[in-house]
């Protein structure tokens, strides 16, 4: 059978090709900065960044070491994400079950969800000042839509036979929602949490642009004012790596859930 794309590479080939891709990227970066093609204060070399990261791991910059900045960021992120999941998942489930709630909330939600998290920065600053509320609000606005949409879709399009079985067995609304709708939607919900977690983490720098007193985003802003580009890139790398770890972790959970359910 002819596949619609080219032949998929084997695992070994995949590893090799991935290494080549990464090496080319680093090489290109190195070449541009080391050759002087781009001025060094605009683009630090990979080695500068490595050295700077090493330094930041133990020495404070902008009031804290990189791990300390990360810890503060993760704390804000956890609040924002948990709030998004805690509101989005139940609301999505209820919207999937009660059609009147769906009709009421969907227009509001659709009106707001294409506004990028960073667009809330001015109001976050205005309403919360430099308190923790601002970053939480921005991370929330990034993580919330997938949490809600997936829970809603999971509940709305749950296989009717499960609902019918529950009704035949004399199950009331509350128990049907908790023991049928929720578990039936669980794979969709977990997928939504994973996407929401990623989008929430992406919103972090925006969240910490203005309102933070510590945090990776704050560190990067301070790096920019001090014209320390290696600090900025070190922050980017830290965000990228932590985001990757979060994603891999949640993918494992998602795979586990699907496996338990016999889906994959």
């Amino acid at each position: 059978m002819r596949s619609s794309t080219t032949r998929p590479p084997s695992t070994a080939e995949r590893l090799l090709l991935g290494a080549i891709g990464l090496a080319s990227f680093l090489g290109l970066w190195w070449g541009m900065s080391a050759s002087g093609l781009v001025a060094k204060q605009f683009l630090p070399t990979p080695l500068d960044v490595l050295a700077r990261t090493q330094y930041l791991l133990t020495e404070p910059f902008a009031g804290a070491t990189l791990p300390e900045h990360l810890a503060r960021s993760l704390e804000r992120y956890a609040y924002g994400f948990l709030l998004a999941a805690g509101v989005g998942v139940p609301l999505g489930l209820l919207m999937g079950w009660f059609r009147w709630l769906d009709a009421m909330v969907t227009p509001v939600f659709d009106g707001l969800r294409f506004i990028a998290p960073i667009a809330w920065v001015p109001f976050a600053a205005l309403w919360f000042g430099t308190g923790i509320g601002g970053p939480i609000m921005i991370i929330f606005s990034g993580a919330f839509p997938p949490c809600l949409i997936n829970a809603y879709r999971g509940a709305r399009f749950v296989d009717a036979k499960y609902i019918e079985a529950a009704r035949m067995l004399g199950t009331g609304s509350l128990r049907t929602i908790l023991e049928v709708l929720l578990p039936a939607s669980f794979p969709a919900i977990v997928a939504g949490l994973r996407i929401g977690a990623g989008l929430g983490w992406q919103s972090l720098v925006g969240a910490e642009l203005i309102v933070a007193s510590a945090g990776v985003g704050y560190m990067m802003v301070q790096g920019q004012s001090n014209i320390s580009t290696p600090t900025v890139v070190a922050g980017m790398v830290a965000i990228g790596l932590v985001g990757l770890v979060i994603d891999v972790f949640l993918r494992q959970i998602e795979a586990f859930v699907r496996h338990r359910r016999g889906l994959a």
Partner: protein
Amino acid sequence: MSAIEFDNVGRLFERDGRSFPALDGVDLTVADKEFVALVGPSGCGKTTCLRMAAGFEAPSSGRVLVGGAPVPGPGPDRAVVFQQFALFPWKTVADNVAFGLRNKGMAAPERRDRIAAIIKLMGLDGYETAFPHQLSGGMQQRVAIARAYVLDPQVLLMDEPFGALDAQTRVVMQEELVRIARINPRTVLFITHAVEEAVYLADRVAVMTQRPGRIKEVLDVRAIRAAENWDRHARVEDVMDLESFVHLRTHIWRSLREEKVGGER
């Protein structure tokens, strides 16, 4: 009293913006504690009849009564064994079976006894903690049957409940169902495409026409079973060998074949 009555029942469905009749003037009564098997060509509306008795759908015309009153909606007094099992994949076998009993507010010790008994009866011992997807189709079907039986309902609505079983298991389950029905008779509406199964299990067999479905004829198996003393045989295959059985089966086969040929317009 828990008789099921279909009184001149019609059901329209929409497809591609046009409505077409799936059932047209179904008249059938399943008397209290009677076992009626419904056979008919596929697509003739058997499942639709059962779903109306269960309360999942309402008739477009005519009336469906259970215990003399129009069906209000689904409920545990009319347990359903679905054609596609509809087990909860996130619950273990034991929890699937227990689900309906917990709605009844039954005390935990009594519930445990009931569940243990039904699990043993259905040959599911040792699978209590398994999840449905870890079981074969036949085992899943037994869980679905256990989930319905355990409610001890007045009315049992079974949609091809033995369809996914292998021939041997099927025979065991048929004998088991006959045994249970003798001990504790219920009102049963039983859909099957296996004519022999219908004749073996039922008090009466109702044959449906090709779509739009009507009741073509109803055969009283009970009278023949008593007259020919089928019950002296404990095994399905011995009953199925009897001349009176074969005669009845062949009659129904012919009746169905007319429909299939006539129905292919």
